[in-house]
């Protein structure tokens, strides 16, 4: 009887509640532990993917590099939630949003310390790693 191989389930750390534990881009979590939010870039066609993907559907290859999300993006839209799905009630209220970096967009949350009255569609924001009270990790959009 061989020892059972330990599954690489690092992705279970992503977000308040993660619904995925095993994925080929689990190094994303390691980068987040180091304070970086990463996209992937296809070595063959140069396309940048966010959310990061293990595979390029254009080239049908899996030759990916990691590429750091840097600089700022424009706030495309957002919504502040007054109700939450099961498992997210302790986070209320919070705002989910989309940030446009030009080559790609990011779906995430607006940082909880950004006052509502300062949030405007079109504003420049940056994406930063955030540690949640339950030790989970996510990323949030912060004012610049």
């Amino acid at each position, binding site marked *: 009887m061989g020892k059972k191989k330990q599954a690489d389930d690092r992705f279970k750390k992503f977000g308040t*509640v993660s619904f995925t534990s095993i994925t080929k881009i689990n190094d994303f979590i390691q980068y987040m532990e180091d304070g970086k939010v990463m996209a992937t870039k296809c070595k063959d066609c140069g396309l940048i993917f966010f959310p990061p993907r293990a595979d390029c559907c254009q080239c049908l290859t899996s030759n990916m590099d990691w590429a750091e999300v840097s600089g700022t993006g424009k706030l*495309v*839209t957002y919504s502040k939630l007054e109700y939450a799905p*099961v498992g997210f009630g302790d986070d209320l209220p919070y705002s989910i949003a989309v940030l446009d970096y030009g080559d790609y*967009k990011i*779906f995430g949350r607006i940082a909880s310390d950004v006052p509502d009255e300062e949030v405007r569609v*079109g504003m420049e924001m940056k994406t930063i790693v955030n540690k949640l009270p339950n030790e989970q990790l*996510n990323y949030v959009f912060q004012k610049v």
Partner: protein
Amino acid sequence: MGKVAIIGVGQSTFVRQYPGSIRELAFDGFKEAMQDAQITAKDIGASVICSAPEYDKQRSPAGVFAEYLGLNPQPTFYVETLCSSSSMGLRLAYSLVKSGLHDSVAVIGFQKMSEISSAESQERMGRGGDIQWESPFGTMMPAYYAMYARAYMEKYGTTPEDLALIRVKAGTYGQLNEKAAYRKAITMEMFSDPENRMASPVASPLRTGDCCANADGSSCIIVANEEKAKAFCKKPVWIMGTGAATTAVNLAGRDLFSGLTVAEQAADEAYKMAGITAKDVDVAEVHDCFTIAEMMAYENLGFAKPGEGKDLIQGKETYKEGSIPVNVDGGLLSKGHPIGATGGSQIRTVVLQLRGEAGDIQVKDPAIGLVHNIGGVGLYGNVTILGR
């Protein structure tokens, strides 16, 4: 190749909590459609069962229904595209009949959402988004559509009051629909009274009054080839066009936030196939899961130019007497939204309109009708064009 017709339509009454099991729920819509078509189960060549499966304990409901509805030994298919499942089921039935594989098909949509709590239901609906990259942020359907509402209102200067007008229209007709779960009048004063439930924020800028509610329900559409339709049916309604499209599940993969690309693309395909334009449509059912969804539908279907949807509702052009009546059965906002049954209910309304059998909500002498049914947050789009 001959034409394809709808020869029977039915739906259960949509209710908050159905007092029976899912097979019994499916029976209600099926019975009405079969009685409408005046046929028996042996006249049906195959069934297509449509739902979003995660609400049920029963795995593979298609086989259970086929037996309960007397549709053995005919084959059965199962179709799922979230909230547009039964419109996609109709598209499959169209192709099965058009190909000659089956001469008639029953499309049965159902959902019994009351088996789980509202919060659990929101969590499951939220998982109709991207579970790897969106759901961990705590997403739910109203918040996703609210993001479209925010971008739309920023771009065009549309107000929360413009959206509320759509809910008021829904209430006007919901009162007349004996199959609707919500049959009360809604007024603009309810939206301006902070103490009123309609005005309470859900996910900004959407309020309770902007959102449809969960419901239990079933629907059934009987599809047949031209020969069978003419033999069985005095007033067949013909499927003139069917359009369907998909897009990125994650909002980060999309470029348009002031409309739904899947609706535009599905409408284009359906209009081309039918050989008509938006101007030719006499009556429409659109997917108003939220008020903003109906507003965007006006524009995505070509009833209004981008940004001018508010002019249609302000001018009451989408009321029964207007230039393009929309959701004169009360829409999802009044009927409730039993996911897999919704598209079939919309199709039923338009079929009854085209036959001149819509009673209190009958639009004057319509020849062409349109059904717009969206799955997820604009993930799946279905547009069906029907004619006399």
